[in-house]
């Protein structure tokens, strides 16, 4: 079953937007979650603020606490057109124009009443759970939030994988922190002891959902691809990267998503885009870097209008590299949480990131790869120009490069980006036709 609510396109014209059942389910899940958050204080449930990469949602859930993810609040503020004002608010109070706009958006939102995407105020945290995975800014972000909220903070330092290997010492370091520091603090805030059997149940459900998500990612090997692995992909990762991993809701969502994708494969159909289904796919691309959220649909349209579908992306792996074999293991609760945190995409060294992109380009038979380099995220962006060169050398596949930002509308130059993308795709077209730059 599908629905077709109306919305406004960039031109202002009223258009019908198709929503898949899974999208509607996800919307309900998010709504229910924010409702639960709004009732949390009166119901005595504890609220934990934490981050997406390397998050410990199963632990939070097993202790019957509720998660809030400031990054998600920021990107939703970007999509709702609120982030510019929030960033301005933070900059007025002394935050530099040079730093991460997720941070400033979050701080500005807090100063403006902390109203979430459903229009309801998000409760303050009972615990700041700082899972420091793959992004240095996280550390500063929660130091800043600690100034704003009177609550304890639990820190989990996840070592980096410079050469793509998790050593026993790294794993032991994370497990020791979980066992001796993080869990005791979480138990103190939750007012109850962690039941490892309950945690294992959550982890088992996570693995079940992860199986289905990987199946969805790999469906993009089909031609035409039944999914868009970047713009559509950010919806697919919604539940599993955020508050829902380990829940029955997430299991059901991914089962339903998988069924929908299977139906599209059977019907030889492409994915939905803001302006309808993309069946006629001229270009298969791999994308590196986060999307721009303030002009998300415009950005997506630039690709879709040219017949470009994204068959794989790295942004959709920041919350876990499930397609490279990782699954949460209910039999080793703390060890598996450590492996999960250590294995997120931005926790990998640059050489490993290049290896992974090369693999995606080859595995998904991509015509090209495209880098959206965002000003706010040095974890992603520093080194991307070298990655571009390395990938072109290794694969012979041409790369495209644009710059924008996560949620600062001042850094999305639509015409510049569109021109660059179109030029890039024209070059790809010429190459495919055996013209300029074609490999003999």
């Amino acid at each position: 079953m599908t629905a077709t609510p109306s919305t406004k396109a960039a031109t202002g014209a009223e258009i019908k937007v198709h929503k898949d059942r899974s999208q509607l389910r996800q919307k309900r899940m998010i709504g229910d979650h924010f409702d639960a958050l709004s009732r949390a204080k009166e119901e005595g449930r504890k609220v934990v603020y934490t981050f997406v990469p390397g998050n410990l949602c199963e632990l939070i859930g097993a202790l019957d606490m509720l998660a809030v993810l400031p990054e998600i609040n920021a990107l939703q503020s970007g999509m709702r057109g609120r982030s510019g004002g929030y960033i301005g608010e933070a900059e007025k109070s002394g935050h530099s124009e040079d730093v991460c706009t997720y941070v400033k958006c979050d701080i500005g939102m807090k100063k403006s009443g902390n109203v979430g995407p459903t229009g309801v105020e998000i409760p303050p945290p009972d615990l700041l759970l700082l899972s420091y995975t793959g992004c240095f800014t996280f550390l500063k972000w929660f130091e800043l939030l600690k100034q704003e909220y009177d609550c304890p903070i639990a820190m989990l330092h996840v070592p980096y994988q410079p050469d793509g290997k998790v050593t026993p010492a790294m794993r032991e370091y994370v497990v020791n922190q979980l066992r001796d520091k993080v869990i005791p603090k979480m138990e103190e805030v939750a007012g109850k002891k962690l039941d490892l059997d309950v945690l294992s149940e959550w982890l088992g459900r996570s693995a079940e959902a992860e199986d289905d998500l990987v199946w969805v990612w790999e469906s993009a090997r089909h031609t035409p691809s039944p999914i868009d692995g970047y713009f559509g992909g950010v919806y697919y990762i919604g539940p599993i990267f955020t508050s829902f991993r380990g829940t029955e809701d997430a299991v059901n969502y991914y089962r339903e998503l998988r069924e929908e994708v299977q139906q599209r494969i059977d019907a030889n159909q492409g994915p939905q885009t803001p302006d309808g289904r993309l069946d006629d796919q001229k270009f298969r691309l791999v994308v590196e870097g986060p999307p721009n959220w303030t002009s998300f649909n415009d950005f997506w349209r630039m690709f879709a209008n040219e017949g470009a579908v994204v068959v794989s992306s790295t942004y959709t792996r920041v919350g876990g590299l499930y397609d490279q074999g990782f699954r949460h293991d209910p039999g080793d609760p703390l060890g598996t949480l450590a492996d999960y945190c250590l294995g997120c995409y931005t926790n990998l060294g640059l050489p490993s990131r290049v290896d992974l992109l090369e693999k995606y380009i080859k595995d998904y038979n991509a015509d090209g790869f495209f880098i959206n380099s965002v000003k706010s995220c040095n974890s992603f962006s520093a080194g991307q120009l070298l990655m571009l060169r390395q990938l072109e050398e290794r694969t012979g596949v041409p790369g495209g490069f644009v710059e924008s930002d996560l949620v600062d509308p001042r850094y999305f130059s639509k015409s510049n980006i569109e021109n660059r993308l179109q030029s890039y795709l024209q070059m790809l077209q010429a190459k495919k036709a055996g013209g300029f730059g074609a490999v003999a």
Partner: protein
Amino acid sequence: MNHPVTPSNGGGANDAVTALVERARKLALGLDLQAVHDFKRNNPGALAIGHMPIYTPRPIIEACGALPVAVFGGGDDVDIIRGDSYFQSYICHIPRSTVELGLSGHLDVLDGMVFPSICDVIRNLGGMWAMLFKDKWACYLDLPQNFDRDIGGKFYAHELRRMADEMHALGGKKLDDESLWQAIADENRRRGAISELDALRRRAPHLAPASEAYLVVRAGSVLTAAGHAELIQDYVNLASARTDRPIDNVRVVLVGAFCEQPPWSLIVALEKAGCDIISDDFQHGFRTIEGDIRIPVFDGADGTQPGEGLDPIDAVADAFLELGAATASRYIDEETKGKALVDAVKAGNADGVIFAAASFCDPALLDQPMLEAACAAASIPFTSFKYSENTGQFQVIREQAGAFSDSVKLWGETAPVQKKKKRRTRRPRA
């Protein structure tokens, strides 16, 4: 630009100190790394290991028979041509000049580079280095953010052993306890000399101005700890003997410049604007460990040898956990954010704080609002500006610092009226 050192006011008695500071300038700012070439010539087969700024466990490198070399980028003396093509406009300057130095052969004398966990940019630069310079050793060093000895300490000790093993595989000396205890003792001597220098700067900044102290400390980038300790000690002795009279400057603590360094001339410009920088976080790596790395006392009674019973690697790790200074790259858990800065202001009887951060420096700029709040709560005046290592125009910053200096002197809460009356007219240095 890389100007020669201007003598401090005080006349001919300063000849010796001027000569020493000029030597320090060449060591600190010379891009030819002549001292490193000399070290390798005098120690055939020994390694020279570069490292990015902030804290790096230099005793481990020295104990492997290698010379640790702090790489602070190209400063304002390098034209960035290739380096810029690897970084977007919104990335700070030090990685691009470091890549430029690498690609242009300036760092060929180094056998490897260590990238301590400062921030995401330097972390990723480590990965770039591994791809760009495949024949060189590139080592990312994860510094623990958990400061429990049994957790973070254990992890860090393992990282240090890994680093030593990799240097050995590269041709360095195999790490042994005796060499490491000796390197720790040398490092403690260096740290002690820096503490003496810092004390002199707080007591009599006109005798040891920041612009000189900067060069003397940074000279250690290409020296062994023992050699550096000697240089600093010589400077402290000579500077203490100066007869210059105090200048009517405000006393400031400068913070935020722990990685990418401002041009040296900018430090001079701040002094000319009426600011005595009595404390700073320039070259923070040399000051990160706030005290001696613990060496067990040997009383000889039971025939034990120095350090017996304690693993010197654990001693290095413990020092980082227990004596590591507060900086933007280090997670501040229980302690109040900004307390260390406020304490430094009070300890140095400073009049105010200058926040000087490199443009696009995430750690410093994300830290700044918290530190500013701490200063505001303690009624400490502050001002702030950004720079990059190749900033060429200082006029605006000089005027800003001058206005800050004047306002603190005229209206600053920390400058009592009677004290102001006693101050002499500011006499700009040449």
